[in-house]
């Protein structure tokens, strides 16, 4: 009772990375709260899926295996999760901020009338004093996320309703095996007891999934462009630079919105979080939502014509000048020096 839960996402029989990352985080939270970590895995033909989840620290794994749970549709998943949560009364429930988690999370939170915070960048345990009501709350989940506007981070809490729900994007938390020999308990769910006939009305008639072409998350060098690239043509210079130095191309949201790059390349709070060896930020101002996704890069080079751009504050090298002039020079001198 009152444990930390992670709702796992299963893709083609495998647990996706963000769910494992959340288990790693959930393990830390559970230790701090001195409670158990439980995982929920719903799908079809997922026998044995619990083994990996134990390694990531789950003490209990609830498995629902049924053909009506694969491919994912909202209502059957919601029925099982809300039913299970009503029985188990978790204090915390975490999901990945993927299309899966962002479809399921709000539905479950609405059904249970509990709060949900999207796209958290940090989760901590802490107390809260409500002076007006003269109440002190112990061990709440601090759901921390960059908020509206510039350099602001908000801590959201959920004092009275349970579970405290949060989504986190892939790559934000670190994934780490807790203990290869950690053994948990398997709880096979009888999903039929949760389904109502009206939960089964939506049908997936066709699916075309591809492996993503862009893989900036695992790239050790990223050349990233912002709105300051000025045009799609100028932005395309970055592919050339990336090509010669062996990098992937990333982008700020303003660059994606302007149509310079596809959404898959967006770095930041609502894009991917990256930790490359080298991050070259070209014409990016460095707003918190962007910085949240790249500040752990080992080395940062900022190219900006504004000497006071916020990005410069976290950079190791600040090049002040016009990207359209500097990027071609980087290409030229890289080639000259590696000949």
């Amino acid at each position, binding site marked *: 009772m009152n444990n930390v839960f992670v709702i796992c996402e299963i893709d083609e029989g495998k647990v996706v990375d963000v769910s494992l990352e959340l288990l790693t985080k959930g393990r830390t939270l559970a230790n701090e709260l001195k409670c158990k970590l439980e995982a929920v895995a719903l799908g079809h033909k997922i026998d044995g899926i619990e083994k990996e989840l134990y390694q990531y620290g789950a003490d209990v794994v609830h498995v629902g295996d049924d053909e009506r749970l694969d*491919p994912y*549709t909202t209502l059957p998943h919601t029925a099982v999760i809300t039913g299970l949560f009503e029985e188990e009364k978790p204090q915390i429930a975490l999901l990945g901020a993927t299309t899966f988690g962002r*479809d399921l*999370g*709000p539905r479950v939170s609405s059904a249970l009338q509990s709060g949900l915070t999207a796209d958290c960048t940090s989760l901590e345990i802490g107390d809260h004093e409500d002076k007006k009501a003269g109440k002190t709350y112990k061990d709440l989940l601090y759901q921390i996320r960059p908020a509206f506007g510039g350099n602001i981070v908000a801590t959201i809490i959920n004092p009275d309703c349970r579970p405290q729900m949060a989504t986190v994007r892939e790559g934000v938390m670190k994934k780490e095996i807790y203990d290869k020999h950690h053994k948990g308990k398997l709880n096979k769910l009888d999903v039929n007891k949760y389904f109502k006939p009206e939960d089964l009305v939506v049908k997936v008639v066709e699916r075309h999934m591809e492996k993503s072409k862009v893989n900036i998350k695992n790239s050790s060098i990223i050349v990233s462009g912002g709105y300051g690239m000025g045009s799609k043509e100028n932005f395309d210079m970055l592919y050339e630079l990336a090509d010669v130095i062996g990098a992937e191309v990333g982008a700020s949201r303003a660059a994606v919105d302007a149509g310079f790059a596809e959404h898959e390349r967006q770095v930041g709070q609502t894009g991917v979080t990256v930790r490359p060896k080298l991050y070259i930020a070209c014409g990016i101002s460095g707003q918190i939502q962007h910085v949240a996704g790249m500040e752990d890069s080992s080395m940062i080079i900022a190219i900006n014509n504004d000497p006071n751009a916020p990005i410069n504050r976290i950079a190791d090298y600040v090049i002040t000048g016009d990207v359209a002039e500097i990027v071609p*020079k980087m290409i030229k*001198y890289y080639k000259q020096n590696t000949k």
Partner: protein
Amino acid sequence: MGLNIIVLAKQVPDTRNVGKDAMKADGTVNRAALPAIFNPEDLNALEQALRLKDKYTGTTVTILTMGPGRAADIIREGLYRGADKGYLLTDRAFAGSDTLATSYAISRAILKLEKADIIIAGRQAIDGDTAQVGPQVAEKLGMPQITYAEEIISADKGKVVVKRRLERGVETVESPLPVVVTVNSSAPACRPRNAKLLMKYKHAKTITESQNASEDYINLTNDRPFLNIPEMSVNDIDADPKWLGLSGSPTKVKKIENIVFQAKEAKQLTAADDEINELMKELIANHTIG
């Protein structure tokens, strides 16, 4: 028989132009300090509704927006582009609502309107990026939901067929009506304002807006009832006040911090050839690149 479609649209602060006074001390957004725009993905949602209207004669498109008085702009904008009518859900009691309290109010209002076949919303609003209100409304209404929609392919014989755009591909799903659909920015852009509709609805106003209107205007609206934009308040939607506003919001803002980055000791360079040359040599020498 056409469809009855409700489009949920939100007026949002343009987050591209955020200033220092964007947040109030209590952690809520200081909307008054920011330029207000039609939430971009809600325009994609409106376009999907208008396409269904083009396809199925007799279809009506109603805009429902929740917000302060000036959010009536959203309804006028919708009317200029082809919506048939709009309701402004506005009340001080909604102030401080999180997504759940917002969803509750919106779902109560929907129940007061003519029974909807499809409720279409943008996937998310740019001031919060939560993507929560669509699904939470669907749950409150007990309707199925289809999120991340790129195209509503058809909506007849009691069911919709919708193409969804997910991280790694597309999926086509089928659901019975009524249903809630949320639309992505990858869906077609909204059609522009129509000149005739602009003329027709230019003077459309809410009751609050027309309070100080001249007698001429009152006479005009007597002839043209379509110029009235109805307002709905808490009293019109049979809502339990306990589920509204701050008290209906499980999530609270505990604190807000301004981030000050630890300034690093950075090397300063210019665009000069020799400096870029030196930098590239250094990066190659220490195996950062190459």
